[in-house]
């Protein structure tokens, strides 16, 4: 009965504290919206706008255009006829590539010869230029192979020596094999975009930020205003009060998760493939861990302002070293071996492994253990150092 009253009062306090609520709800959502919009801007597998200038205008160049268009790698525009004009547009970022297709110099006697193609790229787009060059490289090889197969077919249609026929048909098979694209698959079971990966990181960051910052400031303020001391003069065991508060903050963490999922998954199409129950478990465990970290910080902060500074001083490095915005595995080995033991890292890594890549939960036990050890150590230190009044 008492606990329910405390719980309800705590939920009210948290809900009415608009500044804290902003940090809990709006702040992580801003990141979700930012990364969500960013990811919508670049459709998967598209390298950008390509100005196609067809100066050859023959059968092969028409086939080439069709092949580029079918590949779906570029958004093709034919608004440009002058290469210099197109290159100028590229420098002004209106298009990403200029492709000029010309009749080959070696063309002779009316026979169709593969045209010369020149790709102009923008020096600013280093990240996609190599991909575009290798795409056209491969396309050109395919065209040559196709032309050779056509010539072989012509020869095979003639009355030739059986031994030569066997040679040509074997050669044709080899060429056809060479034309097969290599089989290509993503490493994991599920297609995971950068936004999916960041979204999981942002869920964990939101839980951490609110639990550490919100709870530390709240507790320090209550002690600074002598509310905790006032509670000590009542028969209520102060632990019961803290329990009600912690329950309220955990409920709020789940409310925050609900809002994040609604916006991230509902509006921006972030994907969670598996392990919903594991996601909830991680949020619960993470909320407990970061609430106890907030409790520990409040033990050393004399005022609410000091608590705010300390909490940010801890939360911001944890945010970057926890791998919210990039997979931690890209860090150099020794550095990674340290960073992966920080409190936020195992939460994010475990959630990505199970919920995005579909790994089994059993493989996450070491990470859960890291979180549990942090929880026990931090909570014990908090209980040892936290003072409800001056004495």
């Amino acid at each position: 009965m008492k606990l329910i009253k405390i719980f309800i009062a705590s939920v009210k306090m948290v809900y009415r504290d608009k500044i804290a609520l902003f940090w809990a709800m709006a702040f992580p959502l801003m990141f979700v919206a930012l990364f969500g919009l960013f990811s919508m801007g670049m459709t998967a597998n598209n390298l950008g706008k390509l100005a196609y200038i067809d100066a050859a205008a023959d059968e092969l160049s028409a086939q080439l255009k069709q092949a580029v268009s079918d590949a779906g790698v570029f958004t093709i525009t034919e608004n440009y006829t002058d290469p210099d004009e197109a290159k100028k547009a590229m420098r002004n970022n209106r298009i990403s590539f200029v492709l000029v297709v010309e009749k080959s110099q070696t063309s002779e006697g009316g026979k169709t010869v593969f045209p010369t193609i020149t790709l102009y790229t923008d020096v600013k787009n280093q990240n996609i230029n190599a991909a575009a060059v290798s795409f056209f490289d491969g396309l050109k090889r395919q065209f040559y192979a196709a032309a050779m197969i056509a010539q072989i077919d012509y020869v095979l249609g003639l009355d030739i020596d059986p031994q030569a026929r066997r040679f040509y048909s074997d050669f044709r098979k080899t060429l056809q094999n060479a034309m097969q694209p290599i089989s290509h698959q993503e490493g994991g079971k599920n297609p995971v975009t950068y936004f999916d990966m960041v979204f999981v990181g942002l869920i964990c960051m939101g839980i951490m930020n609110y639990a550490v910052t919100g709870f530390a400031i709240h507790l320090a303020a209550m002690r600074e205003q002598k509310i905790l001391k006032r509670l000590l003069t009542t028969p209520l065991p102060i632990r019961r009060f803290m329990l009600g508060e912690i329950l309220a903050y955990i409920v709020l963490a789940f409310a925050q998760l609900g809002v994040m999922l609604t916006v991230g998954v509902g509006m921006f199409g972030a994907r969670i493939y598996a392990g919903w129950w594991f996601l909830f478990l991680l949020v619960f465990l993470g909320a407990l861990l970061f609430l106890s970290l907030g409790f520990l910080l409040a033990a050393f902060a004399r005022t609410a302002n000091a608590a705010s500074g300390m909490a940010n001083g801890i939360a911001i490095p944890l945010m970057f070293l926890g791998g919210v915005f990039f997979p931690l595995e890209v860090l150099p080995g020794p550095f990674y071996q340290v960073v992966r033991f920080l409190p936020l890292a195992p939460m994010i890594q475990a959630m990505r492994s199970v919920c995005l890549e579909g790994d089994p939960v059993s493989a996450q036990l070491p990470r859960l253990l890291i979180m549990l050890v942090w929880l026990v150590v931090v909570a014990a230190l908090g209980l040892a150092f936290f003072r409800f009044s001056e004495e």
Partner: protein
Amino acid sequence: MNSEPAIEVEDLVKVYGDRRVLKGISFQVWKNEVFGLLGENGAGKTTTLEIIEGLRTATSGSTRVLGMDSQNDLDRIKDRIGVQLQSSAYFEHLTLEEILDLFRSFYGKGLEPHELLSMVGMEDFRRMRVSQLSGGLKQRFSIVAALVNDPEVVFLDEPTTGLDPVARRNLWELVRSIKEQGKTVILTSHYLEEVEALCERVAIIKEGEILALDTVASLVLRQENPVRLDFLPGQELSGEVLSRLSSLGTLKESHGKAGEYVLFLKDLVALKAALRELEPLELNRIAVSTANLEDVFVRLTGSRMTGEEEGLAWRVV
């Protein structure tokens, strides 16, 4: 007066590091009494209260509330006392009603929020937050919150500090009404007029020691020179006159008012003699009164209170 003690304090000592904050304090507070601890900031008033309330532990000595030991029986004591802490706030995001309801739930018995708020005429504020209240109403609420369990003993730590005189007098009414409900009140203050107006008995504390403990009237009357004569001469007094006046009692120069003197006298005979001395002089002002608590306080502690009581301050000639 009921002679059953509500609070018993025996030889209380509190040491912080090498600082002796309380040097062996003993007193008793009778049931249904308003008892005052008077002293300057840092004298040890709050420490004393908080040891009795169980918020701090004594280095040595004992405190008992309603016959129960503050150390061993704290849980039972907490049920029966109400505490208003010095400059303590309440949850900033809850309404007055919600705060009282929450605190009420901590106790086995008590009063409903509307009963408490109507008791002090604050019903209209029940949906407000503490931060929306004026200083006087804030203090009033903080006292009402201490009554939520209908306590037998009420602790008020500097209940009117920082308030304007009107708000202060309003709170005095509240304290009197608490006494009328049959409760015992122990309060600390550094306002002499407050202690004089509210308390039946007062203990004057300085640097962790009780210098005097009695009813206000006895403290004043027990003085060597309980009659007080204030006068403001029209011209400067000659050394001869001053020395004759000094020989009648204790002559001091008023601190607050330039040129004014205060003469403390033993009895009416001395007063008449003093008036005869003053008769030939041109006087702009003259007043005869009984010495007050301030005079007692200054004589005992050798220092004035913090100058907030206009006209009561003076210094030794």
